[in-house]
């Protein structure tokens, strides 16, 4: 092997002439580790070969360089484990999966028809910005077994047990034979929901357990903040544990006010079983 010793090599002819370094046979130019480009060690990213927008560099199972194919919008890069290149895939998501949303503006009721299915065992409802048209009312929840064509509303169909603290005083109570689940207790003084925006809005979350089960009573457990009627400086907390008093497979849920219309934003999520 012969060696050329020089501090610089330039192309000899022309104005814009490439400098070619060529190996022999299967040999290729071998550049020392830590080589510089324009005086700086390492190859700048901008000097990599032009590729496809959105692809990523990786190595395949044989250790050869390759690219991760472009995913679709909102997908995330997901490891496929040792020995396999990662790929873009749909995000696995959290424990809650959005099902449906209703924005009510002075509606007589808020209905989620045919939303309970075999996809989930339990569900979560988040409701906020709630204000009734009629002052000092109670929020009701009802269930349906026929896709919302009719709502279970017979006397004694539901029972609710509360722990409420209107006027900062804890009061517990129950309503064992009601026509609806009560989010804020009707048997507690000063616990009605305000219909005045300056009193603030009400909100609640409620977990619905096994609504589709025909062997378990559907249970609803929730936590509500109720805008105190007539007092913007006061809010009432209501913890409620409620349910149907019969084992039925329910497929729909409804929220309404004990009297008059209701406004607010209501969202329903399915809770993954695993």
């Amino acid at each position: 092997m012969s060696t050329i010793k020089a501090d610089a090599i330039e192309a000899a002819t022309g104005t814009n002439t490439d400098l070619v370094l060529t190996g022999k046979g299967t040999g290729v130019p071998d550049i020392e580790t830590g080589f510089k480009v324009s005086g700086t060690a390492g190859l700048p990213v901008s000097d990599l070969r032009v590729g496809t927008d959105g692809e990523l560099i990786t190595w395949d199972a044989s250790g050869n360089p390759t690219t991760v194919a472009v995913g679709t919008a909102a997908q995330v890069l997901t490891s496929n484990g040792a020995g396999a290149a990662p790929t873009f895939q749909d995000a696995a998501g959290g424990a809650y999966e959005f099902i449906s949303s209703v924005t009510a503006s002075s509606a007589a009721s808020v209905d989620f028809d045919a939303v309970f299915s075999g996809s989930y065992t339990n569900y979560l409802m988040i409701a906020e910005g709630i204000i009734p048209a009629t002052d000092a009312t109670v929020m009701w929840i009802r269930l349906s077994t026929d896709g919302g064509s009719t709502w279970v509303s017979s006397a004694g169909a539901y029972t609710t047990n509360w722990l409420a603290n209107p006027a900062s005083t804890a009061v517990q109570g129950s309503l064992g034979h009601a026509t609806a689940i009560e989010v804020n207790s009707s048997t507690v003084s000063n616990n009605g929901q305000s219909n005045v925006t300056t009193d603030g809005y009400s909100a609640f979350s409620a977990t619905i357990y096994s609504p589709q089960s025909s062997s378990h009573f559907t249970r609803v457990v929730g936590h509500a903040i109720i805008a105190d009627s007539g007092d913007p400086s006061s809010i009432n907390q209501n913890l409620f544990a409620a349910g149907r008093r019969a084992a039925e497979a329910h497929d729909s849920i409804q929220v309404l006010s004990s009297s008059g219309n209701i406004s607010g934003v209501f969202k329903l999520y399915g809770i993954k079983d695993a």
Partner: protein
Amino acid sequence: MARFKAVPVSEAYPNGLKPFTPEEESQRDADEAAWEAAKPQLETLAKIAVLEIQVTQRRLREAALTDEGKAWLQNIEDQIAAERAKVR
């Protein structure tokens, strides 16, 4: 005036509103009438709950140890009895 229910926006209900059926109108009328009819009883139950929670451990000790405490407790008991009589 016809009532509407708020539902998820869909092709069938692009404005998220679905009119009540005649059966639902009847049900809602009955609901609201029952609510109005039950109000006096509910208010009475609420009053009883407020009276009951006033009987604290301290009030019971005072009732056991002083005439004033006993009189106060008797007054509360009388008020509860009067309210209970309304819902019987």
